[in-house]
């Protein structure tokens, strides 16, 4: 069994300040972890993925995430927010290799103010 908890439903930042979106997971297997972003009226776009290689994963648009097994966390960060980062972000876990059925968090809405 696997699950993922996104600790904040909404996060508000000012443009140019750091972003932190928190995610905790549980999995019976060695997990694969993903962050997806969804802009309004769009599908989900992959930001980055962790698959047991480097624990610090770099993604697109300046985002990165660190896998911490001891804390069962996979938090998403960005040093400096941009207005275009405003969107909903989903943390996703998949614990079984082969067919990849995913378990999604409930999402965190990132609001960026000027």
């Amino acid at each position, binding site marked *: 069994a696997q699950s993922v908890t996104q600790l904040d*439903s909404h996060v508000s930042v000012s443009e140019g300040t750091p972003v932190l979106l928190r995610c905790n997971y549980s999995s019976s297997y060695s997990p*694969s972890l*993903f962050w*997806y972003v969804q802009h309004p*009226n*769009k*599908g*989900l*776009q*992959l930001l980055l*993925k962790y*698959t*047991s290689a480097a624990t610090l994963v770099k993604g697109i648009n300046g985002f990165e995430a660190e896998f911490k097994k001891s804390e069962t966390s996979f938090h998403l960060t960005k040093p400096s927010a941009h207005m275009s980062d405003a969107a909903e972000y*989903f943390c996703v876990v*998949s614990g*079984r*290799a*082969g*067919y*990849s*059925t*995913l378990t*999604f*968090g*409930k*999402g965190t809405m990132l609001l960026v103010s000027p």
Partner: protein
Amino acid sequence: NAGVTQTPKFRVLKTGQSMTLLCAQDMNHEYMYWYRQDPGMGLRLIHYSVGEGTTAKGEVPDGYNVSRLKKQNFLLGLESAAPSQTSVYFCASSDPGQYNQPQHFGDGTRLSIL
């Protein structure tokens, strides 16, 4: 690059009507998935397919049927639509691999049942 294409983008149905949502992918992926997205719920898996001619139930399969007659297409059917099926439906596809491969999503079908 078409990727994953969903048809239609919007639809309004009356209770009891039937319809089929079409998903087409041009990436030659083996695996395809149907999800529904409801506010505050993240994405929940309805059905999936690990290859042409195969389908399997996901987390919330009741009231839906699927078919995968061709590798590139995955159809989602509602035999008798109910208001509880008002949602945004997303199709995704991916390839098998040693580690779980990321899923590629369409832009969604917004379905309202009156």
